[in-house]
């Protein structure tokens, strides 16, 4: 039997970078000009935002193996931070303001992730779910009551609409790339080892608390960025948009796509964001269709549509190069 041919990690890296650049260029060209209706433009932006939310939640659920139910809370923190920053810095050059706003939104959300993560991650399973659910609600109630800063229930209006196609595309690409890169380093492996077996990870010298909090903070960071994009997309923020149902929506995307699969999250986020628009005639039954879809997937494919499979162009090329000899069961490495 022939030797199984492999692509070296650095070549795989180059292939991925080229893929990302193609994605951004094609995406920008396709959506540029006036070729798209306003509705479909809005939909594409929304999909981008939900893709970031789903892949960020996937860090905590799919990779770390926990079940937080307060993801919309982190999104809200990011959204309000960015919106307030952008409103305060209207005289700054726009690109600078956008970038700073996104970073600030991510960082503040990450700080919240750490604050909630340290106590919450001492708990497991349903306990962690409940405590994060509580956290999400606290954020929402706090936003309503801090009406001096956040505008309260009537909402925070006149947020500059900074979420252009380019900004959203770049954020989606950067988020996916950053998560992919981290997950394939010692830090990512440590997070995965905690999901696989906590006791074994502990006795391999993995600092459990540190890596759990790190995963949680990363998850919150990218949710914060998605929140900022949401603020720049909507132009106005209302606490109602960040309620429990919003957290559940994101969780549904992750579970449906397959926990631990980034491509799964992307596909599920796309489909579930586009679905309501496609089913506009049946808007009243949206939640019913949602639920039925979930039940069907859980019965026939409990691990989600893609399970843990992750798309890898270098992996496919490798398979094609080796099409003549059949290897044993392989696990994607990059």
């Amino acid at each position, binding site marked *: 039997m022939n030797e199984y041919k492999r692509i070296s990690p*650095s070549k795989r890296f180059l292939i991925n970078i080229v893929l990302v650049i193609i994605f951004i260029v094609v995406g920008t060209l396709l959506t540029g000009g006036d070729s798209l209706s306003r509705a479909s433009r809005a939909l594409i932006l929304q999909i981008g935002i939900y893709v970031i939310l789903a892949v960020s939640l996937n860090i905590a659920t799919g990779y770390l193996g926990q079940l937080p139910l307060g993801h919309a809370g982190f999104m809200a923190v990011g959204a309000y931070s960015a919106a307030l920053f952008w409103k305060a810095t209207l005289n700054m050059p726009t690109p600078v303001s956008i970038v700073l706003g996104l970073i600030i939104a991510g960082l503040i959300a990450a700080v919240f992730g750490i604050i909630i993560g340290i106590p919450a991650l001492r708990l497991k399973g349903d306990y962690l779910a409940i405590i994060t659910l509580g956290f999400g609600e606290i954020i929402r109630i706090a936003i309503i009551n801090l009406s001096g800063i956040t505008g309260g229930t009537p909402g925070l209006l006149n947020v500059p609409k900074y979420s252009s196609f380019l900004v959203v595309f770049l954020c989606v690409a950067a988020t996916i790339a950053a998560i992919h890169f981290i997950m394939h*380093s010692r*830090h990512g*492996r440590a997070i995965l*080892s905690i999901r*696989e*077996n906590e006791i074994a990870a*502990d*006795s391999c010298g993995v600092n459990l608390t540190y890596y759990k909090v790190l995963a949680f903070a990363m998850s919150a960071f990218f949710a914060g960025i998605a929140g900022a994009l949401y603020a720049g997309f909507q132009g106005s923020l209302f606490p109602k948009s960040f309620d429990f149902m919003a957290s559940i929506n994101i969780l549904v995307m992750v579970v449906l796509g397959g926990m631990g699969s980034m491509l799964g999250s992307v596909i599920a986020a796309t489909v579930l964001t586009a679905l309501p628009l496609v089913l506009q005639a049946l808007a009243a039954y949206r939640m019913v269709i949602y639920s039925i879809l979930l039940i069907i997937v859980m019965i026939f494919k409990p691990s989600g549509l893609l399970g843990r499979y992750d798309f890898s162009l270098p992996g496919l090329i490798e398979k094609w190069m080796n099409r003549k000899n059949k290897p044993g069961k392989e*696990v994607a490495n990059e």
Partner: protein
Amino acid sequence: MSELVSMPSPGRIPDRDIDKSPILETHHLGIKFGGLVAVDEFNVMIGRTEIAGLIGPNGAGKTTVFNLLTNVYTPTSGTILLDGKDTKGLKTYQINKRGIARTFQNIRLFGQLSVLDNVLIGLHNSIHCSLTSAMLRLPAYWKSEKVARERALELLSIFDMQDLANNEAGSLPYGAQRRLEIVRALATNPSLLLLDEPAAGMNPSETSELMENIRKIRDMFQIAVLLIEHDMNLVMGICEGIIVLNYGRIIAKGPPEEIKTNPTVIEAYLGRKKEG
């Protein structure tokens, strides 16, 4: 009935070759779960390159001793000196960094990750690459990953497992999973390796191969090995010192020849002969 094993033990490393300065010392080590004394007055010394065995009937507290040494359970009494330093207050992962690695009685691999990844996680603390250099793929990342991968494959080659590197760990046959656990433990660069029933579920030829490998590991890495095992051929064959535990207390300590003929040990295993 005076002997536990029927086979004469194969040749051992003579006493003079065993470095006697202890890597591990425990004094009055013990733990109580509520009113139950699980381990009590556990005093041992293990040499730097010694292979020691911990035996005893089921429920004697052998695995509990491993859990105490690695602070999975916090001892309620006594001290543990690793390389002369007290490990009190250290967490499990910190004790691993200080030099104790272990395997588990019921295999605990990272089942859905690749064999290579399992070993790379063992190498976790010897890979130096910050979060930023991983995220931005700076040269530090490429360099550390390359070194780590080479080292992982090298470690896998001890058990001739380098060709399985990309297989899913959970899909390996049972014996290979046990070997992988040992490789993963070795990857953490220990000075004391704790093996919890390494031969469980292995056939006689696999067991004798394992014996050879445990010796090989000790000689190659110059480390101490403490193993729990029920297979007396293995224990008597490779251990230079044996500790016998019953109801949480040490009932005998010494070289295999002594243990084999020790009446207390025989009684613990086989029960007392009825008088008359």
